[in-house]
């Protein structure tokens, strides 16, 4: 087994890793659908979507590695960190094919995350960091498609049969406690906003709401009341599912150090 790497975590590195890890872990969960989606066509669509996210993660990890300065590179950042050094949203690490979650959770999560990434990429495209701005400008096009594809599914299932509506509403109840984290600012966000690296999480709330409201209305979905629970994946504190996800994701690189295609 290869030892884990340790990082010099400046606020800028943390800020970029939060986005990179959200894309990476979201992609990992979507990849679990490969060969298992309800229909062949959507199986390919979900894989495409996951690969877009993986591509975004790669670009951001490469950039984070450069900002961090330790010379680790994208593969080491993706596969050789310990759990508390991942800074993804907790929402994207929750299982999609186990623990009561299903295809409705999958499309709903894709929608919630795409609606969050879309305004994030838009703001980042004017970042003081030109590399980050370029990555964001490219990713924005991909996310626009993800948003539309997932929104259509949310409406199709939410406003579909009794069974699909029940499942989509149940998926929303499962996801909702983890949504608060999407807009939860801390010192890293404040530093990014002050230095014009990128927007604080709280700035994404209004544009996010503006894109989900009409879709939820068409889908006849009602979010549950906000609770007191807060997840903190962006700060490195993860759910019980993260360790299993990492074990699977990191296995090859840990067992065959430096292995490449």
């Amino acid at each position, binding site marked *: 087994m290869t030892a884990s790497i340790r990082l010099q975590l400046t606020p800028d590195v943390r800020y970029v890793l939060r986005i990179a890890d959200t894309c990476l872990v979201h992609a990992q969960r979507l990849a679990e659908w490969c060969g298992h989606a309800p*229909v*062949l*066509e*959507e199986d*390919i*669509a979900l894989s*495409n979507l996951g690969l877009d996210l993986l591509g975004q993660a790669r670009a951001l990890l490469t950039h984070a590695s450069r900002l961090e300065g330790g010379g680790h590179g994208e593969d080491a950042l993706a596969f050789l960190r310990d759990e508390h050094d991942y800074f993804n949203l907790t929402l994207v690490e929750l299982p999609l094919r186990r623990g009561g979650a299903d295809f409705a959770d999958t499309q709903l999560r894709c929608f919630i995350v795409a609606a969050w990434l879309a305004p994030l990429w838009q703001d980042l495209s004017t970042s003081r960091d030109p590399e980050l701005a370029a990555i964001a400008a490219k990713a924005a096009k991909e996310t626009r*498609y993800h948003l*539309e*594809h997932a929104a*259509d599914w949310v409406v*199709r299932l939410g406003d579909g*049969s*009794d*069974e699909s509506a029940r499942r989509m509403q149940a998926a929303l109840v499962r996801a909702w406690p983890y949504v608060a984290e999407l807009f939860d600012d801390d010192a890293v966000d404040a530093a990014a906003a002050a230095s014009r690296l990128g927007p604080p999480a709280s700035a994404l709330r209004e544009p996010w709401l503006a894109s989900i409201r009409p879709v939820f209305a068409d889908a006849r979905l009602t979010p549950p009341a906000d609770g007191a629970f807060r997840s903190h994946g962006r700060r490195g504190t993860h759910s019980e599912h993260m360790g299993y996800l990492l074990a699977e994701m990191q296995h090859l690189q840990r067992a065959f150090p430096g292995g490449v295609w």
Partner: protein
Amino acid sequence: MKPTAEWPLWEVFVRAKAGLDHKHCGSLHAPDPKAAIQLARDVYTRRQEGTSVWVVRSDQIIASDPADKAMYFDPMEDKVYRHPTFYELPKSVDHM
């Protein structure tokens, strides 16, 4: 409501680049026109094959009957004079 029949079948046409025509490249199942376009994009253009996609409900295509093949198409076999190359042009128009 119970899940009913399978999604309808759609034929997919992809245009490789501006100026070229749309070429038939396969078919897929989708629940509605918009999903058909999106899934066509995902299934048939993921390796940069296209810049435009058409989908047509397969049951909307009227096809010739394979049983009519002999009657419809074989008679053309011996009519070479229907090709312009069959005719010798006068020298004065050799750049047709």
